[in-house]
């Protein structure tokens, strides 16, 4: 084989035929799963970050343990335990919910470190200024710190989001339909794994490319109040 054979008529036809099915499961599977998971994950991350920042040793300990477990073990194993393991203690969760739980836990752990870092990066003077005009911890967090931390954490959070798009390909392991599953199914019938997977890769890349354009826009917007 040579370069010509990669772009052979046959391969091009296969790529053409598999394009629509893959885009379809990307739209109904991958993208909604990514978005829902990300939102749930961010909420979780935020709570975890607050636990880490709180003086409370117990909450801090829980948060540390959670983050350590999630970051220290493969996502695949986590999904397996949620989907196949929990039924043995009589907790049976549907595939889609399992996927949301699994990926959210993952996003929650990774993003919590980003959020914690961004909150800590805000000058202590902001806390003191807020305190000096009588604002409470919660008020300061909500009105002063988070708006500023959001700006700091936006780029790394976007990266987490983009990684998540690709990680959702693991969802097929627990019976959720997403794009990579479709690629596998197509390849299992025409045995052109390389062609079909490469095509899937390109579609992922396009999705990520658009996401990073949105990321750029968002960053520019949030940066409005920052001195050059």
């Amino acid at each position: 084989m040579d370069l010509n054979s990669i772009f052979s008529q046959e391969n091009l036809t296969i790529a053409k035929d598999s394009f629509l099915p893959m885009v379809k499961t990307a739209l109904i599977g991958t993208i909604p799963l990514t978005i829902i998971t990300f939102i749930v994950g961010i909420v979780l991350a935020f709570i975890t970050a607050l636990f880490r920042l709180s003086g409370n040793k117990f909450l801090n300990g829980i948060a540390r343990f959670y983050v350590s477990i999630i970051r220290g073990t493969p996502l695949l194993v986590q999904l397996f335990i949620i989907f196949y393991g929990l039924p043995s203690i009589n907790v049976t969760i549907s595939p889609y919910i399992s996927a949301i739980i699994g990926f959210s836990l993952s996003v929650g752990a990774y993003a919590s470190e980003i959020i914690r870092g961004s909150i800590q990066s805000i000058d202590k003077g902001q806390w003191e200024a807020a305190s000096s005009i009588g604002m409470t911890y919660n008020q300061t967090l909500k009105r002063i710190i988070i708006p500023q931390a959001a700006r700091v954490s936006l780029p790394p959070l976007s990266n987490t989001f983009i990684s998540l798009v690709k990680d959702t390909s693991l969802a097929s392991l627990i019976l959720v339909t997403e794009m990579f599953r479709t690629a596998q199914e197509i390849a299992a019938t025409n045995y052109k794994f390389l062609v079909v997977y490469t095509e899937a890769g390109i579609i992922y890349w396009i999705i990520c490319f658009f996401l990073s354009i949105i990321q750029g826009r968002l960053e520019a917007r949030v940066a409005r109040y920052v001195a050059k």
Partner: protein
Amino acid sequence: GCNTNKKEETAKGKDLLTQVKDSGELKIGTEGTYAPFTFHDKSGKLTGFDVDLSNEVAKRLGVKPKYFETQWDAMFAGLDAKRFDIIANEVGIRADREKKYYFSDPYITSSGALVVKSDSKVKSFNDIKGLNAAQSLTSNYGDLAKKYGAKLVGVEGFSQAIQLIESGRADATINDKLSIQNYLKETGDNKVKIAALENDASNSGFMFRKDDDSLVKAVNKALADMKKDGKYDEIVQKWFGKDGLK
């Protein structure tokens, strides 16, 4: 200068069989995770029916077997990419596969078996219409389940399919009779049972790239010889007992 030129020409023209013999090894792709055909024993050694069989074939070709273990999709890609010469993985001989690949003569015939929960009312293949069948992408049996009107849920492997049935998330799975029997024997699992056996048996064989058929012919010859001199029966008996393939 002339001499080397000639050598290159012949090297190019060498058929697959000669290449294998020259290199002294037969490169075999297999999953290594499909008992009892290709798997690792307690000591971690690769073994199984397909493995024993291809060992014997290699011996008769006068070369050493060399195994490359990976998962299903990578196995096909690996054969295409000439990472190995044959696949020994209980691959069913099917028309769609024959379009792209050569197969050896069949070396085993088996049939599909329907597995359901022990207390299930399913008694025959016809009963799975509208039910959820847990099937892996890679098996031949997904199509069969579809034919009987089941809805497919895709799983990674047989163990996961069983787990889904036991936790009630799937109603049935169809798989190779021999493989299921092995599972029941190994685990003593009594939460699932075989509800029905398929009538039509299907054949499996070694799979080859469609380059040239020299290696296919040689392997077929080795298989025929094994059947003649009793070695084949010996291997069958080792794995499936006296009347395992009946």
